[in-house]
């Protein structure tokens, strides 16, 4: 039986097409992926991302443990700041990608992928060290992403928190639309300016309705998982199960910026990643555009030098660009901007070209 988020009734009311996603019944689209995608780029979109997991790490040794658990330098973040990071296993491959929110040095919340909540929780439990407490608090919060150029001005009407003073990847706790105990974070997965709003589950429908009602006349739309995927793809953001998984190191997936090998602190997978770096990656994650017709999709082989030696990890028709775009792994020497290769699209060889990413340049 698929689970329902606190916003399930809102999706049904809005005519959302519900699909199973990681054991949740979620809206893949309301009016259409392209419409919703464009609404986010031109105005703003409201996304229900309550299916994502929250794992809380508390206690005297919380900071040290988060540092040990994640590849980024967690000691760099201060209270009220968030950080994109990776959980790696001992082989240096990816357990999950997460956002770490630091409330104090004794309380952190990790926001994790819906499909990985149980795996991550067990992983974090198994590696427990020091004086800490670990809780899966996924059911304690609803999570709404409000993303797009008009999101901040609309949201500002409903909160006393000065949103302009919150920098990217920072968050603040407070009242929103008369609901207490909300967390407003300047984080997101679309590339646009925007926030992610944590609220009490029971308060989520009122917040959703308030923002949608005020936003609709300005072009704001509810947006489903379909648009969430095309928006992140245009930014070349990784998605677990596509660009990264437990067979991929963050170093080959273009995520070395969140892997800090030169700190004195150890983290799980650090030794393996140091060795991986010394040997050098044999493949590279690149963004490409189709030259020939066709749309690349996950799993299609990439052919260089007459050999199928690469693979597409994600692909779509970009709603913003009107061009077929994709992300994929190619041999290290075939990944320079402008290089061409072929993609085996259901038995037909179609030419593509490595391009600069993000695919979409923000306005």
């Amino acid at each position, binding site marked *: 039986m698929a689970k329902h988020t606190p916003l399930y009734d809102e999706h049904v009311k809005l005519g959302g097409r519900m699909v199973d996603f990681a054991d949740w019944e979620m809206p*893949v*689209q309301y009016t*259409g*992926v*392209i*419409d919703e995608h464009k609404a986010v780029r031109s105005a703003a979109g409201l996304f229900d991302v309550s299916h994502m997991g929250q794992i809380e790490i508390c206690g005297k040794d919380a900071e040290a443990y988060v540092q040990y658990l994640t590849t980024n330098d967690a000691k760099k973040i201060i209270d009220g700041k968030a950080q994109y990071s990776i959980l790696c296993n001992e082989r240096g491959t990816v357990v999950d990608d997460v956002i770490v929110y630091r409330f104090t040095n004794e309380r952190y919340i990790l926001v994790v992928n819906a499909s990985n909540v149980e795996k991550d929780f067990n992983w974090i439990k198994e590696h427990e060290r020091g004086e800490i407490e670990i809780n899966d608090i996924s059911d304690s919060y609803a999570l709404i992403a409000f993303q797009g150029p008009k999101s901040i001005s609309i949201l500002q009407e409903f909160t006393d928190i000065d949103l302009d003073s919150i920098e990217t990847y920072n968050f603040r706790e407070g009242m929103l639309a008369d609901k207490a105990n909300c967390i407003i974070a300047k984080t997101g997965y679309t590339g646009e300016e925007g926030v992610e709003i944590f609220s009490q589950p029971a308060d989520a429908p009122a917040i959703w309705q308030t923002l949608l009602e005020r936003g609709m006349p300005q072009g704001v739309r509810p947006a489903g998982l*379909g648009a969430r*995927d*095309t928006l992140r793809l245009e930014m070349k953001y990784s998605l677990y199960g596509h660009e990264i998984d437990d067979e991929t190191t963050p170093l080959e997936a273009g995520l070395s910026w969140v892997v800090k090998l030169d700190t004195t602190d150890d983290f799980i997978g650090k030794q393996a990643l140091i060795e991986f770096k010394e040997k050098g990656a044999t493949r590279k994650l690149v963004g490409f555009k189709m030259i020939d*017709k*066709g*749309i690349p*999709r996950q799993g299609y082989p990439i052919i260089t030098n007459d050999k199928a030696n690469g693979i597409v990890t994600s692909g*779509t*028709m970009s*709603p913003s660009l009107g061009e*077929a775009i994709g992300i994929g792994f190619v041999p290290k020497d075939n990944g320079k901007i402008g290089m061409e290769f072929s993609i085996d699209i*259901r038995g037909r060889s179609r030419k593509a070209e490595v391009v600069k990413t993000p695919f979409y340049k923000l306005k």
Partner: protein
Amino acid sequence: MNIPDDLKYTKEHEWVKLEGDTATIGVTHHAQGQLGDIVYVELPTEGEEISKEDTFGSLESVKAVSDCFAPLSGKVIEINNVLSENPETINEDCYEEGWIVKIELSDKSELEELMSDEQYKAFVAEESA
């Protein structure tokens, strides 16, 4: 549900319009709704012989690819070139401007296996239940 009564239908949610020996084929309103925004259409080439149940092309939405299965056997005599540049025509007008191919039938007895509008209506209702 938009299901015209002058067409025949398949379980793959395609419609067939018969004029003499020529069958025009497209996808139903229900099918285009399920697919969502169609952004790319792979068409067969004119003159190609296709057999019933063969894949003769594909429709792609932003998220996924769907094969088109031939409801009847025959020779492709015309393809809808409008779809190459404007695949969304299928979403906008699936029964008229959004037709996909025309084939010259090689075995008219296959027509008997197609569903009437009433049968198709019942089929969709059952499938969605």
